[in-house]
């Protein structure tokens, strides 16, 4: 792999500080058992406000796998998964997390062949065993099955709750973004599901659920999310003061960190830094010549690498489906007085649970708003939920918006699928096409 000599990416300072917050969260989770806290393993949507209100420590399966991948520590867990029988074409988040379940189960009983004892001890003792599972996956069937498998690996002893959430295909004639019969019916249904989840949590904790606390938590999330969206909107400016990679680096905070004043402070800090940069003409990429939209789930093994790679080509990745169409992106829907509705609606809004009609509309809007020159698609090998619509979206970008596109291959948490040469040549071709188009105009 070629090395990039000069780093032309100018990442927000605040995200570095945010990294410490995230580290502190995980350290606290790893000691949950010692503190006598109950632990839930959950997958899918951001159910953490409910767990926080119920006084439970939470581990988001995808987040844990992403963290291991970002720290290049995913190997032992993926090996354990492979040894157990998971084929490498299977979602690498699930393979990593299931590998952790295998290690958690085996640790103390028998040594798992190819994963050495030190690695086993390290991973198994760091990720506390769950007291129960909650699954909250909507579109992706793999997400739902993954917890079913964890449940089996851990000997069918750990209680499991499956939240049933409808995929927003848009079957009804009036279906649309935030409107239509389907949207209203689905909202009511998910609110009802959340009430059932709350009953389950009450049984598991033996305590009544603290609804006031949930309202308070949602008011922190609402404020943080508003700041995040405002900071993002400042990047419509040319050159953009911050990039997609900064929003990726802030996903953990908005997606699963405890909601408290610190969360608001973090996003206030991000917004202030972006505003300062804007005022003083500092850009997120030293010589911004191209403005790109990133479609696809993140390649966590390569976050820093990709940021530098695109910046090296003077390409500022400004926005993307993963960062801009997820994670409490419509804060006005959150009503702290009536928090369940806003929670339900955000779960329904998750972009990998939306049919093409809505995705098309959202990409078109973001490309317009942010003055996008090209769309880059990360074909994440083992996450079909994210690649499903990419070819259709590319057709829209090319044929309807007149924006050139390119695909590169990689994966969420399995580094083996990333091919640097492919990105190199495809990105160069994309930028040449943009140049040619500019020359024509």
């Amino acid at each position, binding site marked *: 792999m070629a090395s990039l000599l000069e780093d032309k990416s100018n990442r927000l300072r605040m995200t570095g500080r945010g990294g410490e917050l995230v580290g502190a969260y995980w350290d606290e989770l790893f000691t949950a058992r010692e503190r006598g806290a109950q632990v839930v393993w959950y997958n899918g949507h951001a159910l953490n406000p409910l767990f926080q209100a119920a006084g439970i420590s939470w581990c988001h399966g995808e987040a844990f796998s992403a963290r291991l991948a970002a720290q290049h520590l995913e190997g032992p867990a993926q090996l354990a998964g492979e040894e157990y*029988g998971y084929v490498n074409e299977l979602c690498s988040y699930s393979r990593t997390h299931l590998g952790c379940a295998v290690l958690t189960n085996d640790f103390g009983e028998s040594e798992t062949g190819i994963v050495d004892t030190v690695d086993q001890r390290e991973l198994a003792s760091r990720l506390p065993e769950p007291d129960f599972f909650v699954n909250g996956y909507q579109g992706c069937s793999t997400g739902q099955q993954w917890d079913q*498998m964890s449940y089996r690996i851990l000997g069918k002893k750990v209680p499991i709750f499956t939240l049933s959430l409808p995929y927003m295909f848009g079957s009804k004639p009036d279906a649309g973004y935030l409107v239509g019969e389907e949207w209203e019916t689905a909202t009511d249904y998910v609110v009802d599901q959340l009430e059932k989840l709350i009953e389950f949590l009450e049984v598991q904790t033996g305590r009544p659920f603290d609804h006031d606390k949930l309202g308070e938590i949602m008011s922190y999330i609402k404020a943080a999310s508003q700041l995040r969206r405002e900071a993002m909107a400042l990047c419509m400016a040319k050159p953009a003061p911050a990039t997609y990679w900064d929003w990726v680096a802030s996903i953990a905070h908005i997606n699963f960190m405890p909601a408290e004043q610190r969360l608001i402070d973090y996003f206030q800090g991000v917004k202030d830094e972006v505003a300062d940069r804007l005022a003083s003409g500092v850009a997120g990429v030293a010589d911004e010549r191209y403005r790109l939209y990133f479609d696809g789930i993140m390649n966590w093994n390569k976050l820093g690498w990709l940021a530098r790679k695109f910046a090296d080509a003077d390409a500022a990745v400004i926005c993307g489906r993963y960062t801009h169409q997820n994670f409490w992106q419509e804060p006005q829907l959150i009503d702290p007085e009536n928090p369940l509705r806003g929670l339900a609606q955000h779960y329904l809004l998750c972009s990998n649970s939306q049919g*093409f009609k809505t995705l098309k509309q959202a990409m078109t809007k973001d490309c317009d708003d942010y003055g996008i020159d090209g769309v880059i698609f990360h074909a994440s090998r083992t996450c079909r*939920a994210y*690649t499903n619509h990419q*070819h259709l979206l590319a057709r829209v970008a090319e044929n309807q918006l007149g924006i050139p596109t390119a695909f590169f291959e990689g994966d969420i948490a399995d580094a083996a699928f990333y091919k640097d040469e492919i990105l190199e040549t495809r990105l160069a071709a994309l930028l040449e096409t943009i140049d040619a188009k500019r020359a024509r105009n």
Partner: protein
Amino acid sequence: MEHTAVSPLAAMSRAAEDPTGYVEQWKARTGGRAIAAFPMNFPAEIAHAAGLLPVIVQEDRNPITLGNNLLSEFNCGYSRNLADQAATGRLDAYDGFFMADHCIQLIGAADVIRELTAGRRFYFGQLISSMNDPWTTDQARLTMTDFVDELSSFAGVQITDERLRESIKTYNRGRRLLRALYEQRRSGDSRFTSGELQTMVKSSMVMQREEHNALLEELVAQSSAAPRDDRVRVHLSGHFCHAPKPELLEVIEESGGIVVDDDLFHGARYISTDADESGSPVDALVGQYLDRNVNIPCPTRAQSDVDWDTYLLNAVHSSGAEVVISLLVKYCEPHMLYLPELRKALEAKGIPHLLLETEHEGMPLETMRTRIEAMFEQAKRSRTLTRVPTA
């Protein structure tokens, strides 16, 4: 009803291999409308009660061309083939599209189809897939009722309880006939090859049910039991949504195996469960949906109190299968997720297990043959060692 000069099996085979041709003829003959339905839980009885011809779209034999630019190469062959069928006009015979399942790859194909067939109705009514919650029945009932409303309005007829009950009876009759053949196969009758049984099930997903039932009855009347020989007894497992290629079934039989049971979608899985013929027909379809996953658990559903591996061990025990061959559709995630559980359970009981990965194109049949033969030889050797009766 068409009176065929050809044998019942040949008529079924024609429909199974060329569903579009069948649909076009049926439409020309009846003036009716046909809908494309998708595996694996669409309640076809409702469409039938609306006077429509519901056809589960089959994987066809065409190489994937345009489909490869519509879905990723790492989507299962079936979903890419569906996209290809839509892109090349091979779904033009259908007047609408209806789907009840939510495998994420199938959803990807559905969105491609909707986009490329704009103007025709595409209705996705997602059946709840968490199967053992206190609210599962109510939720499934809402979706079934939605299907009744949607299909009524699509067909422009009122689907009454009487009509729906009649359709349930018709479908039950077909399933019962097929199940009887499967049961006979389990107990030692080898009058039909696995390819022929697959043709019967596949054509039942395509043909108008009354016509198919009549052919089945004729076929059963014409044939008589044939005792099984001493080939290695095989249980075929998996292969969702579409049928394994007949040539693969032939390789298994040519290599010295005989399929005695299966849990394939184009097999025992599809015909496993009837709907109640008394009481509310919508409730009957809900009950059928729930019972089916208990009878033969499916890894596209989430149900923590039933297990595919337990089912498989029981099935192997009752059919006397000596080996299990898992047919994995390349990139089929539900199956990939469940495989380790199957492997663990079979290993614990000392049941030999072979995993074969199938693809839409370019399947390495000869390599598969070598692996299958090696497995069968091994099974035969252990027969002599353990003196297991051969039939």
